[in-house]
């Protein structure tokens, strides 16, 4: 890139540009946010962690006030919270519903065996033994026939 100037460019280059209006200097400099006589405008910003202890202190104070309020409320209420009394009819109704619910659950639980008997289905041919009777014997492995070819006939 040839950056030298030919006569035309030199002729243009010699034309002096206008200065910035003088009134702008005062206006801009007077309103600039600079530090004047120890002011805080241009004070360097504090690091981000500088405000952390104060944040935690404020949060702790709020938490302490909440705890204090709870204690005072507890003390004013005689130290215990009393549940509102439930009328006897509601309690009887709740008991009745509970019994119906558990009764229905019990009937549902026994339904498969009852259904098999009702439809004449037989019980499974091989009932698995109870878990307590399942003992592991030596060599009793599902891979025994693979490990010992003589076991297969």
């Amino acid at each position, binding site marked *: 890139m040839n950056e030298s*100037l030919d006569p035309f460019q030199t002729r*243009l280059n010699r034309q002096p540009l*206008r200065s*910035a209006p003088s009134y*702008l200097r005062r206006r801009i*400099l007077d309103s*600039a*946010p*600079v530090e*004047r006589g120890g002011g805080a405008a241009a004070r360097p910003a504090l690091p981000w962690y500088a405000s952390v202890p104060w944040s935690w202190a404020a949060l702790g104070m709020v938490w302490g006030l909440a705890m204090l309020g709870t204690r005072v409320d507890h003390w004013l209420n005689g130290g215990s919270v009393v549940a509102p009394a439930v009328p006897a009819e509601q309690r009887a109704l709740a008991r009745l519903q509970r019994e119906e619910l558990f009764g229905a659950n019990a009937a549902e639980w026994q339904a498969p065996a009852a259904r098999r008997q009702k439809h004449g289905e037989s019980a499974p041919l091989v009932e698995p033994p109870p878990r307590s009777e399942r003992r592991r014997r030596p060599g009793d492995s599902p891979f025994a026939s693979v490990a010992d070819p003589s076991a297969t006939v």
Partner: protein
Amino acid sequence: MSPTELEALYDAHADAVHAFVLNLSRDESDAADALQEVFHEIARRPAMLNDVRDPRGFLLRLAHNRAIDAMRRRDARSRAHEALAAESVELFAATPDPDEAAWRREIAAALGELPPDQRAVVHLKLWEGLTFDKIAEVLAIPPNTAASRYRYGLDKMRERLRPLFEERQ
């Protein structure tokens, strides 16, 4: 940054920044606003200049961004106003010589006819004396783009001002 430091910075670079923004925006109030925004930005965050080797280039870059923003805002408002301003802006210093004054008016008008991107490069090359690499930094464009914009812009100006230039030779 202290007031004294800001004043020194202003006195050293404000004229160049103002002329550049005025040539780019062709609007006195936009130029004044951009100049104020640039120096207030520096006053607010003086650390911006900490690693800057060439404060003039840095300020011109800030000013260019401000001028582009102002031009976009104004573009949305009025194009007719811009056309009028392009004719009437006083870019060069006043002179008592009427021939010289006419020559300067013609140069200003020829600059006003260039697209803003070519005008910016021509201004930085001719009146700031920046290299194409430096112009590329200021305008955030590749150096080859800066060179080609300069060539196109200068060719248009040469064509426009040829009769007057030859007459004055």
